[in-house]
C-alpha cells in the first residue's frame, strides 16, 4: 500500500546530503514550510544552495533568528537564489562579506524556472530581464519585436512544501494565498517533502479540487503549525 506519511521529522529529513540544492516554498510567512526548515537545521546538511522567494530577515538585537534566517545565519547556505535579498538582512550581510553567494532574479523567472524543471523543459526564452543586469551572460534573441533571454530550468535535490491537507498518496490542497510557490516547488524537487496542517483519508479530497497530485510528492509529515505570523 502506498503510504507517503512519515512519522517523524528525522524520517522526513533522512538522507539530505551536504551540497544539496533545496527549494523552499512560501511567500513571507504564508505557505512557508517553517517546521521543515527547522528540521533541516537539526538534520545538519550544509553547503546548501537555497532557492527561495525572499532571503530572510534582518538581524534584530536580542531576537534569536528562526527558520530560513537561522539556516542562513548558521552559515549553512553557500549560495542563495532569490528575488529579494535585502542588503540589511543577515543574508545580505553574508553576501556583502563574501561568505555566501547571492543571485537575485525576477520572481516570475524563479517560478517559471522551477515549473520548467518539473515539466521537463530544460530552458525557455522570456522577455523578463532582457536589457537589465539579469541578462548578463545570457543568450538573447528577439521574438515579435521584443528581446528575450534564455533561462534554464532550476531543479532541486530537495523541495520543502507546506500544505493545508494531504492524503497518503501525497495529494495536496493549500489554503488561500498559501498556495503561492508550493505547487511549483513540489514539481521541481527530486525529493519533495511536505509538512501538512491536516491529513485525510484517501478519497476525501475531491478529485477536481486536488491542486498538487501526489505524483510530485515523496514524504508527508503531519505538522499542525498554527497560523502564519504577520510580517514585522
Amino acid at each position, binding site marked *: 500500500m502506498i503510504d507517503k506519511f512519515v512519522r517523524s521529522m528525522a524520517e522526513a529529513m533522512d538522507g539530505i546530503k551536504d551540497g544539496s540544492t533545496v527549494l523552499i516554498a512560501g*511567500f513571507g510567512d*504564508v505557505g512557508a514550510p517553517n517546521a521543515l526548515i527547522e528540521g533541516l537545521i537539526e538534520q545538519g546538511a550544509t553547503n546548501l544552495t537555497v532557492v527561495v522567494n525572499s532571503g530572510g530577515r534582518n538581524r534584530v538585537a536580542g531576537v534569536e533568528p528562526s527558520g530560513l534566517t537561522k539556516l542562513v545565519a548558521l552559515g549553512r547556505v553557500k549560495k542563495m537564489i532569490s528575488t529579494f535579498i535585502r542588503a540589511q538582512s543577515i543574508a545580505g550581510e553574508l553576501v556583502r562579506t563574501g561568505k555566501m553567494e547571492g*543571485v537575485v532574479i525576477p*520572481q516570475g523567472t524563479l517560478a517559471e524556472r522551477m515549473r520548467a524543471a518539473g515539466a521537463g523543459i530544460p530552458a525557455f526564452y522570456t522577455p*523578463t530581464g532582457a536589457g537589465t543586469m539579469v541578462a548578463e551572460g545570457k543568450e538573447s534573441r528577439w521574438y515579435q519585436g521584443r528581446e528575450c533571454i534564455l533561462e534554464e530550468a532550476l531543479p532541486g535535490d530537495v523541495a520543502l512544501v507546506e500544505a493545508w491537507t494531504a492524503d497518503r498518496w501525497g495529494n495536496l490542497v493549500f489554503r*488561500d494565498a498559501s498556495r503561492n510557490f508550493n505547487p511549483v516547488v513540489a514539481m521541481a524537487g527530486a525529493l519533495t517533502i511536505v509538512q501538512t496542517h491536516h491529513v485525510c483519508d484517501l478519497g476525501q479530497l475531491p478529485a477536481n479540487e486536488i491542486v498538487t497530485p501526489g505524483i510530485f510528492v515523496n514524504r508527508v509529515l503531519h505538522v499542525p503549525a498554527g497560523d502564519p505570523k504577520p510580517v514585522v
Partner: protein
Amino acid sequence: MTEHTYKPLGRSGMAARAAQDIPGGWYVNLGIGIPTLVADHVPAEREVIFHSENGILGVGPAPAKHKENPWLINASSQRVSLHPGGSFFDHAMSFAMVRGQHLDLCVLGGFQVAENGDLANWAQSAESGTGQIGGAMDLAVGAKQVWVIMEHTTKGGEARLLKRCTYPLTAPRCVTRVYTSLAVLDVAERGFVVRDIIPGLSFEELQAKTEAKLHR
C-alpha cells in the same frame, strides 16, 4: 516666489490621482509602496479586478481586525480580503498572467524613469548579489500599461525624470505614464508629454525640476 504657491501631492494624493484614471473592468496589479494605496481610491461601484503576484485575483480591501485571515496576504505582505469572484492560484500561473500580457495595467513605484520609458526601481547601484527585484521586472515587461508613481524629485532635489536612467534598469522602454507629486506625464515617442500639473505650478517650473525635456 511662485514656488511657495503650490502644494505637491502626498502619497495618498498621488495614489488617488492614478486611481482616477483606471477604468472599470481592468485587471490591475499594484506594486509595493504607494501603488498599493491606489486600490483605496477606486470608487466601490467601479469594478476593477486587482491581481497580486502571490497568486490572487480579486484582492479586496484590508479586512476589519476581527475578520483578518492570516492566510490571505497581498504582495506587500499586508493582510487583505478577497472580493467575491476572487481566485487563488500558484506562482507559475500568477506570472503566466503577468508575462502573458493578460494584465491591463500595473502600477509600480520607481526611482527613475527615462524619456524613452526605461524604468529603474529595484536597486540604486550595480552591485550584484543583493537587491529587491521581486515581481517588478515581470510586471514591467508584461502588463499592457505600466504606470509609475513616485516623487517628482529625490529628497535632495535631484531629478528622477531623466534622459537616461543611471540606476540599474528594471526593464527598458516599458513605462507608459508617470504620476509624480507634481504632474502626470505620458511617455510618448518624442519623450515625456505633460498631461496634468498640480495647481500653482507652471510648465517652466516643472521643467526646472526635470532633467529630461518636457513636451506639451
